């Protein structure tokens, strides 16, 4: 849409690539999680949080076993 938009997006991709390298450095086994470019890579972490991480947790009671549960 414009130069500013392009630069912002480009910066997100660069930051994402650095994140991926760090996250993947811990993935040593074949079944380990892999991190890389996906549909969210053009978003900054803040944009991603604001759009997709909108659940509000409620404090749940600790589980004490089936008797208490009943």
């Amino acid at each position, binding site marked *: 849409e414009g130069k500013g938009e392009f630069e912002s997006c480009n910066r997100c991709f660069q930051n994402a690539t650095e994140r991926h390298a760090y996250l993947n450095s811990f993935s040593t086994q074949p079944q380990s999680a892999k991190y890389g470019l996906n549909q969210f890579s053009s978003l900054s972490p803040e944009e991603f949080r604001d759009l997709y991480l909108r659940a509000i947790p409620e404090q749940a*009671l600790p589980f004490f076993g089936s008797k208490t549960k009943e």
Partner: protein
Amino acid sequence: LPAKFDWRDRAVVAPVQNQQACGSCWAFSVVGAMQAAKAIAGMPLEELSVQQVIDCCFQNGGCNGGSPTKALFWLQRTRINLVPQSEYPYKAKNGMCHFFSHPKGGVALRNFTTFDFSGQEEAMKAELVERGPLSAVVDAVSWQDYLGGIIQHHCSSRWPNHAVLVVGYDATGEIPFWIVQNSWGTDWGNEGYVYVKLGSNLCGIADSVAAVLV
């Protein structure tokens, strides 16, 4: 408990959906649990209306976010019939609440329980097997970059922010993991699913868990 259990094998889990640019994960998580509970109760598996929960559960903020527990309280208190998705389709934006005086199909919530299973993921496994897929709230900050595989690192439990549906677990391999259905479409993760290491409350998966009964 079996070493592996997956509610998808019993055809009670509806396909992965895409919440799009709407903070409605809390509604997808709750509706996913209700769809499964309905199918487990012997009724046909059908997609129920997420939009109805977004529009009508005023205790939550629709696309601006919400709490699965508040949605469950609302469903239980009002005994509202959650109608099929075909009757009340998803629009990925807040809308007016529609009332159905004679709904075709659908189901109402009878009861639900919420628990903190942190440190007790064996008990959470039992709850999953006994009751059905579980609604859970996790810290999904690192999921922005996830492509697939089992998450074992970089997933804190400090800041729960995303609601999902836990549909099974697999402890047959070297790394036991939870099988979690997300609502970011099938292009994300393992065809819309994410695997989270079981046993260390990774991503806070055991902190806020709900089971439903319809």
